[in-house]
């Protein structure tokens, strides 16, 4: 089977590491990755501990299909208590790192404690070393770290998952970046890594993965890829990527603009797919260079961009940012663009590059800057606070400056590094933060997408579009009616899928049938859809239990007053607000939770959680 059957437990406090068998009973009950790591975390920490204390743990986890060669089977997750939110955090990434970890013979790494001095972990198959990072890569960017570690160990094929300076310096929305531009992005998982004095995990794996039935697996994986590749959805993702959502949300009126004061952006046409592919007068090139895929992926939705070398952000930087690098994906683009009122695609691409090299979640960074811009225009934040920079909506100069100072945690960047909730509270206006449970909105305004509003309010890791959205319903009808069961089912489905090692973008193309066929050739036993969906529900409830123990209550299942009280000015939801009060009681009922949002005994018993 594709499980290596081994966990690496790293005690950072005592600088020691040991091998443990994977708990197969839990793997059966939670599939892997998100579900399995959450089960370990729930067992091993008190959810009430401070996220940045040595008592919190940090788990890097693969799924049973990670590293197998199933299309998109390169996903891995970072699971911990989130520094941004104080809630359960599970951030999912692609790239090459997850597959490499599995190929090195490890299903999961659990980091405990805090290293007395900065360190990095080096894994070459069974060989595991905890090495000093001080005087070496500590203080360096993600990109420098990747280059220096590969050079020191004389192997350009080492794959790394690292933090940059933002992660070291406690920026609350620091992420873990692997392969230069892929990230376990949300909830401050990189901040937790930094608090443990852990700079990077460098892995080289050459062992391979043994699936349960190799012949059958190869056959079904090929069939599944062919089915996926033939879909219009997969072709569209490869050609135009997630940036397609910019035009969709602009047309629908669900594009969060200027800190959600507006839902459509007059400059959207300068920061969309068309703008990305437009030939520049300055150098005869387009912003978009090409696309790329993660480990074993046959979709290849990733954007690779070249910034205009004459742009003000990069022209004096010695060519550092003008070679092809990871470009704008929609979630970064909406936050660095419309949310801040900026329509300069080159500036946004530069800010995205800084998020990658310094390890910042571009969603939370952009959304925090958007909140700061509103506070600036209210006169609450002034140039005295910023050291002279005017934070007006629409200022590309402010965007680039803010990415520089936040990424390096200098000057006013330390304030922006608090995240929007803490920043807005500090300046006396908590209502200006567009966040839930401390985590900033993703790129969908919940007034025109009522199901998204319910998802933001109930997502276990705070506002998030990747925890189970009602896409089809939200883009066909602006109504709260009937959203609760759809969102509940989508949440369970995502929790399940995030536990397999596959990418959510393959789900529609594969269909349930191909997912199950690949799992059954990979693992012992039968994995029908009922079992998978019940597992997703088990994971969702386990995450909810974690949050309840961490101190969250039903009062936290809410949205900022702006989207509950201020109607959308334009678009499909003109005159409408998010009707959370209509959806939430039905959602609790659908979940088998009390009106106070607590799972009932019968629900926990049915799911094996009592």
């Amino acid at each position, binding site marked *: 089977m594709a499980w290596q059957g081994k966990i690496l437990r790293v005690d950072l406090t005592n600088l020691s590491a040991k091998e443990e068998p994977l708990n197969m009973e839990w793997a059966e009950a939670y599939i892997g990755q998100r579900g399995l790591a959450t089960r370990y975390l729930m067992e091993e920490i008190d959810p009430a501990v401070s996220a940045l204390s040595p008592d919190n743990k940090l788990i890097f986890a693969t799924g049973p299909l990670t590293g197998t060669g199933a299309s998109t089977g390169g996903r891995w997750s970072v699971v911990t208590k989130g520094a941004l939110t104080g809630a359960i955090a599970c951030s999912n990434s692609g790239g090459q790192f997850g597959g490499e970890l599995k190929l090195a013979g490890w299903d999961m790494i659990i980091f405990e404690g805090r290293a007395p001095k900065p360190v990095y972990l080096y894994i070459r198959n069974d060989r595991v070393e905890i090495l000093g990072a001080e005087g070496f890569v500590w203080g360096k960017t993600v990109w420098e770290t990747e280059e220096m570690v590969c050079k020191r160990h004389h192997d350009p094929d080492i794959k790394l998952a690292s933090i940059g300076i933002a992660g070291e310096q406690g920026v609350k929305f620091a992420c873990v970046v692997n392969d230069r531009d892929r990230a376990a992005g949300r909830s401050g998982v990189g901040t937790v890594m930094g608090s443990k004095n852990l700079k990077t995990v460098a892995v080289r794996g050459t062992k391979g993965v043994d699936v349960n039935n190799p012949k059958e697996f190869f056959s079904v994986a090929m069939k599944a890829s062919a089915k996926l590749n033939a879909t*219009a*959805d997969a072709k*569209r*993702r490869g050609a*135009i990527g*997630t940036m*397609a*959502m910019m*035009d*969709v949300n602009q*047309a*629908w*009126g669900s594009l969060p603009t200027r800190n959600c004061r507006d839902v459509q952006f007059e400059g959207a046409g300068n920061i*969309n*797919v*068309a703008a990305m592919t437009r030939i520049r007068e300055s150098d005869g090139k387009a912003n978009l260079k090409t696309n790329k895929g993660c480990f074993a992926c046959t979709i290849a*939705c990733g954007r690779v961009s070249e910034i205009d070398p004459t742009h003000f952000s990069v022209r004096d930087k010695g060519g550092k940012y003008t070679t092809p690098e990871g470009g704008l*994906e*929609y*979630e970064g683009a909406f936050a660095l663009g419309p949310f801040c009122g900026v329509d300069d695609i080159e500036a946004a691409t530069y800010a995205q590059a800084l998020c990658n090299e310094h390890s910042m979640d571009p969603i939370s960074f952009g959304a925090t800057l958007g909140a700061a811009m509103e506070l600036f225009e209210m006169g609450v934040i002034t140039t005295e606070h910023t050291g002279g920079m005017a934070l007006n909506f629409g200022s590309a100069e402010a965007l680039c400056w803010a990415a520089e100072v936040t990424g390096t945690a200098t000057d006013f960047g330390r304030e922006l590094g608090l995240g929007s909730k803490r920043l807005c509270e500090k300046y006396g206006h908590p209502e200006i933060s567009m966040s839930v449970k401390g985590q900033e909105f*993703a*790129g*969908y305004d919940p007034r025109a997408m009522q199901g998204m509003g319910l998802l933001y309010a109930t997502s276990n890791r705070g506002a998030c*579009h*990747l925890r189970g*959205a009602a*896409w*089809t319903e939200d*883009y*066909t*009808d*602006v*109504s709260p009616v009937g959203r609760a069961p759809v969102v509940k089912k989508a949440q369970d489905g995502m929790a399940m899928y995030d536990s397999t090692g596959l990418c*959510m*973008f393959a789900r*529609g193309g594969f269909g349930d049938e191909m997912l199950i066929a690949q799992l059954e050739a990979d693992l012992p036993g039968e994995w029908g859809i009922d079992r998978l969906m019940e597992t997703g529900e088990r994971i969702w409830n386990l995450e909810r239990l974690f949050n309840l123990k961490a101190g969250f209550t039903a009062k936290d299942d809410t949205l900022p007053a702006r989207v509950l009280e201020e109607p959308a000015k334009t*678009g*499909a939801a003109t005159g409408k607000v998010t009707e959370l009060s209509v959806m939430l009681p039905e959602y609790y009922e659908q979940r088998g939770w009390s009106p106070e949002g607590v799972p009932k005994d019968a629900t926990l018993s049915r799911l094996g959680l009592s």
Partner: protein
Amino acid sequence: MQGAMGDVSGTREFPDGLSAHELLIQLEMPPEESYAVMINDIPVSLPDRTSRILLDGDKVTIFPPIKGG
């Protein structure tokens, strides 16, 4: 006719009395794939598509069933 994402855009003539539902079929966009439809920037929900007849000068926006990420 204006397509999302700039890939299909322009003006086209259709027979009188065509419904939004029938338009999707004419454009080879299977309605069961949940294309989102707006006419003159107003969403047309699924149940209303068979009764919403296109009129001269209508601007139709159609989104493919793409999901975010």
